[in-house]
């Protein structure tokens, strides 16, 4: 079936990366999830790099094989059971805008906005469904579960994985596609060990992969949900190298131009005096937030509703301190 609008969608069943433009969930009539297909790696140029018709066909064949083995394999699939959703349907999210056609990304951005307004937003809410590349695995989109490349000195390399290996399961979770690898990574803590089963040369091999640190952090700028959840009506654009030079800003320094402010969301910023064309050089003593993701995530995690944000601003060649409220 095709779900074009997410109105009334049962969020206790359908949990996936809501920022995707195309996604498939395979499931039984009793709501047991067999697996998922669909991965988006970035903006327009990277929207389709991880999916293909042959890969989708493989995922469907694996789904049918899973169905043929059901319900004998039901216990293996319990890891796919969606977690109890905070809100049963999109309409129940308090910050969901009334809409005859709710888009999937609105589920994510409304949830993020709600959590921020409740001062409950965490980094794990923002950095979702990590790509396998984050642990050193580049999967072949023509198959989805065959390793195409292993990152040097990555967790995958240290676990002994090689090009051509076919990943069978992670932490006991059978896989249909790369989207299922992302499901496991999404639900894994940052510091953990993954138990990986793979096939090499016709043999089944088990290995353990240690994960630690910031592997879950990724660029969020392509995500449709970032417009409401992070930017909320303000478009910040990194200053170009030429403009940095003209303004005596070091090439590696943080500098974001306020390119535009849309709709009522940024009204508190306008009232506080922030102007289009202002360049944000830092937040208090933080001048190391050099990507839009780092900059906006820092604001949303550090400054809950009602707080003031101390901005270091460059305006018409002069550096000024401008305190603005959260928005």
């Amino acid at each position, binding site marked *: *079936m095709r*779900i074009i*609008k997410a109105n009334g969608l049962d969020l206790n069943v359908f949990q996936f990366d809501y920022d995707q433009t*195309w996604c498939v*969930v395979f*499931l*039984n009539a009793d709501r047991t999830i067999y697996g998922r297909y669909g991965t988006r790696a970035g903006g327009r140029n990277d929207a389709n790099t991880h999916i293909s018709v042959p890969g*989708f066909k493989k995922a469907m064949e694996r*789904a*049918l094989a899973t169905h043929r083995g059901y319900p004998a394999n039901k216990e293996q699939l319990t890891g796919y059971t969606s977690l109890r959703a905070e809100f049963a349907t999109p309409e129940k999210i308090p910050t969901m805008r009334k809409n005859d056609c709710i888009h999937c990304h609105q589920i994510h951005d409304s949830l993020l906005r709600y959590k921020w307004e409740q001062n409950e937003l965490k980094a794990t809410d923002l950095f979702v469904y990590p790509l396998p590349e984050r642990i050193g695995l580049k999967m072949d989109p023509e198959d989805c579960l065959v390793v195409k490349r292993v990152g040097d000195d990555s967790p995958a390399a240290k676990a002994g994985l090689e090009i051509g290996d076919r990943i069978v399961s992670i932490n006991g979770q059978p896989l249909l596609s790369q989207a299922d690898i992302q499901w496991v990574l999404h639900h894994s803590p940052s510091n953990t060990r993954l138990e990986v089963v793979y096939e090499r040369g016709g043999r089944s091999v088990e290995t353990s992969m240690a994960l630690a640190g910031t592997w879950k952090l990724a660029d969020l700028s392509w995500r449709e949900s970032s417009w409401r959840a992070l930017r909320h009506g303000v478009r910040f654009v990194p200053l170009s190298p030429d403009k940095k030079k003209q303004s005596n800003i070091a090439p590696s320094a943080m500098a974001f131009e306020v390119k535009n402010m849309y709709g009522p969301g940024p009204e508190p910023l306008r009232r506080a005096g922030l102007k289009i064309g202002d360049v944000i050089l830092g937040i208090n003593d933080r001048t190391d937030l050099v990507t839009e993701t780092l900059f906006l995530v820092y604001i949303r995690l550090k400054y809950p509703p009602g707080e003031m944000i101390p901005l270091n601003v460059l305006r018409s060649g002069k550096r000024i301190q401008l305190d603005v409220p959260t928005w």
Partner: protein
Amino acid sequence: MLIRVAAILAVGMLVPTVVLGQVKKPQDIEVSPHWIYDDMPAAWAQAKQSGKPILALFR
């Protein structure tokens, strides 16, 4: 059968459905009768009756 139908649908979806300068609505594409649109109860019922799995496509 499911694979063949779904493969046709997949090709149809991954190729832009633009004809004579007009973008077709999903329900207008040639294979639309094979799909259930935005009707989960119908999908659950048909899957239960037929014993087949569900492929739920979000787009």
